[in-house]
């Protein structure tokens, strides 16, 4: 079964169609492009989100010593490096036999991760997405940026910048640097947070929780002001996947996998992440460097799914912090018993998570264990480790095998944005059909496509980490779009 069956993925006949490219897609992490093929009546015949970056982490991590991996693989990304850092460390905990981290190490890693969620969600909403939402999708392009937001809504921009800064400060104190630190090591962490450092964060955390509440209110106001837009823009139905904690609570750091269908019914629950390969398969398509994952039991046509805030907030049974839990209930009530699938609702869910991250940091900071000295655990060595974490953008899977000489012999990474590959393609196809068909294309209209992609907060750098598994194909097209030459390679 091939992906050609998805509507608008491949035009029936490409000859004579007009090609429009959005390249690069802006205000996302990494580089991607969208191509549209239009017929003589300007009707959309084909829409694809292509990822044009090519990385190679899965290949060049092979043959490196395992203890280097958490520091090296985080370079996949400059926005959510902590997620890769921790997912790798979690995987390698198994390799060094640390089945149970020390109390201090577990809490320090959790603090680092929730700082990461806070800073990444703040960055995405305020810096990348808010210009579209505050000014309108077709507003003046030169104004649609954080500088424009700062001029028109200075307090909103200020709070966004300071929320992110606080998250980065949490990361600096737990990882050693704001970006690309070394805090997590196989079996634990290499640093604690002193009481003085905790006091510094505690002095600001009340304000941070307050601003996070304001952010949820802001996104709710935007949604309420134009529900006809927010509820339907790019909306498609799909399964959802995320980790949930042992009591069904929202948990970004650890848990078991849960899958719900498009109606909210639980398909899989309590699934051990160590068996992820039985749950998820990946499909390769020649036109993108990003793979297409799907649930093995359902196949590529029915088994694709969403991850990230919209999936997580609806997949869990509850949120352990009171303010975020109240917001979750309101969000769920808005769906009137049905899952909300609207891409723009990602922003709402994301801000609920921002609030939860802030509340969790507030709960963690007074804990003396953060200043403890028992930081590393070890046990019986193993040759394999799988680490799964909820990164800001969704479920992140790291899987390593380590040989007897301590070198990595294989590596498999399934990153958050890759899970959302088919969802993003579905969203932009719906937007293209609804808004672009039969019209003269303007920058503002094309920005609608980008708005749909941005809702998922994709990290295209992360998503193209692999090498050696995807067929590379070069195509030479004549003016009419006919393929006149092709060069294909299996590696």
């Amino acid at each position, binding site marked *: 079964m091939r992906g050609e069956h998805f509507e608008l993925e491949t035009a029936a006949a490409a000859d004579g169609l007009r090609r429009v490219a959005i390249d690069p897609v802006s205000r996302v992490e990494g580089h991607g492009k969208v191509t549209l093929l239009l017929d003589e009546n300007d009707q959309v015949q084909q829409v694809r989100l292509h990822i044009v970056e090519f990385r190679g982490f899965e290949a060049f991590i092979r043959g490196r010593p395992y203890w280097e991996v958490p520091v090296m693989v985080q370079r996949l990304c400059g926005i959510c490096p902590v997620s890769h850092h921790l997912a790798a460390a979690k995987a390698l905990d198994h390799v060094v036999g640390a089945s149970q981290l020390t109390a201090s190490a577990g809490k320090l890693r959790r603090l680092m991760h929730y700082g990461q969620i806070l800073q990444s969600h703040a960055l995405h909403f305020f810096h990348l997405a808010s210009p579209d939402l505050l000014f309108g999708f077709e507003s003046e392009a030169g104004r649609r940026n954080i500088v424009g937001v700062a001029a028109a809504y200075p307090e909103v921009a200020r709070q966004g910048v300071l929320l992110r800064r606080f998250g980065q400060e949490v990361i600096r104190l737990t*990882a050693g640097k704001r970006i690309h*630190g070394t805090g997590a090591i196989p079996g634990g962490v290499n640093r604690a947070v002193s009481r003085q450092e905790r006091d510094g964060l505690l002095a600001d955390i009340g304000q941070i929780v307050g601003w996070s509440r304001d952010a949820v209110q802001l996104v709710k106001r935007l949604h309420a002001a134009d529900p006809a837009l927010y509820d339907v823009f790019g909306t498609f139905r799909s399964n959802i996947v995320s980790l949930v904690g042992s009591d069904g609570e929202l948990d970004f750091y650890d848990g078991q996998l849960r899958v719900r269908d498009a109606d909210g019914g639980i398909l899989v629950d309590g699934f051990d992440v160590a068996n992820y390969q039985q749950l998820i398969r990946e499909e390769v398509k020649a036109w993108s460097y990003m793979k297409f994952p799907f649930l093995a039991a359902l196949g590529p046509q029915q088994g694709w799914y969403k991850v990230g805030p919209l999936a997580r907030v609806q997949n869990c049974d509850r949120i352990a912090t009171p303010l975020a839990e109240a917001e979750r209930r309101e969000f769920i009530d808005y769906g009137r018993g049905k899952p909300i699938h609207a891409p723009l609702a990602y922003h709402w869910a994301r801000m609920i998570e921002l609030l939860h991250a802030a509340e969790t940091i507030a709960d963690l900071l007074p804990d003396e264990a953060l200043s403890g000295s028992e930081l590393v655990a070890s046990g019986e060595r193993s040759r394999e480790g799988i680490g799964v974490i909820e990164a800001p953008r969704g479920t992140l899977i790291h899987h390593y095998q380590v040989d007897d000489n301590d070198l990595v012999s294989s590596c498999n990474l399934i990153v958050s944005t890759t899970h959302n590959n088919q969802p993003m393609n579905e969203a932009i196809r719906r937007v293209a059909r609804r808004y672009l068909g039969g019209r003269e294309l303007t920058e503002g209209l094309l920005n609608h496509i980008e708005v749909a992609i941005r809702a998922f907060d994709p990290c295209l750098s992360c998503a193209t980490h692999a090498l050696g598994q995807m067929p590379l194909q070069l195509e030479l097209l004549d003016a009419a779009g006919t393929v006149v030459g092709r060069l294909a390679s299996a590696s």
Partner: protein
Amino acid sequence: MTQASILLDGLPIPFVAGQTIMDAATAAGIFIPHLCHHPDFKPQGSCKLCTVKANGRHVSACFTPARDGMEVENNTPDLNDKRRTLLQMLFVEGNHFCPSCEKSGNCMLQALAYELEMLSPHFDQFYPDRPVDASHPEVLLDFNRCILCELCVRASRDVDGKSVFALSGRGIGKHLIVNAESGRLADTNFSWADKAAQVCPVGVILRKRVGFAVPIGKRRYDVEPIGMQVERMAARSAGEEGMDGD
């Protein structure tokens, strides 16, 4: 009788007979950049980082005996430019990926690059293919970072009495080898307790399974830049001598 001295960047620096320019400068707390020099070993003079101008001639400070009245230029823009170029060549010749190197923060090559304000590699990267040797149970050899300083060669031969390491090949093909028919460290009598295990200025000879255990902020050159460490050590030894005299 006044003590013999050299004039280092215009500053009179005393020395005793037998000391090199490097010895005299180090004792006085003045840093002359270097990589292959180590006070515990005979000078080698191969890295050329310590090149100074003595009475108008370029010489290696680690190798050249101090002479009374010698005028030595060390910290000058011209010499530092040349040193920076040498560093850039060392960086592109190997695979020095500081962001994920466990020696980061403890590495002399990196510390010197910061000290001499090397902002880019400038030259095209060679990207040599140098597989690691992970055969030894205690020690990893990552040849990607070897700068051919021969400190491990000298330590193993002169202190450990083992001659585990040697350089082989010529010119650009020169590389570090170990003394085993298989070419693997596991098949030598090398041990982590050897002096040779402790002297690598870069990230070639590494104790296994402890990488990144020291947090950022507590690594050797996080605490103090390499140039200042010489100054502090000299001040400390002067203080100890002062106390001895009391």
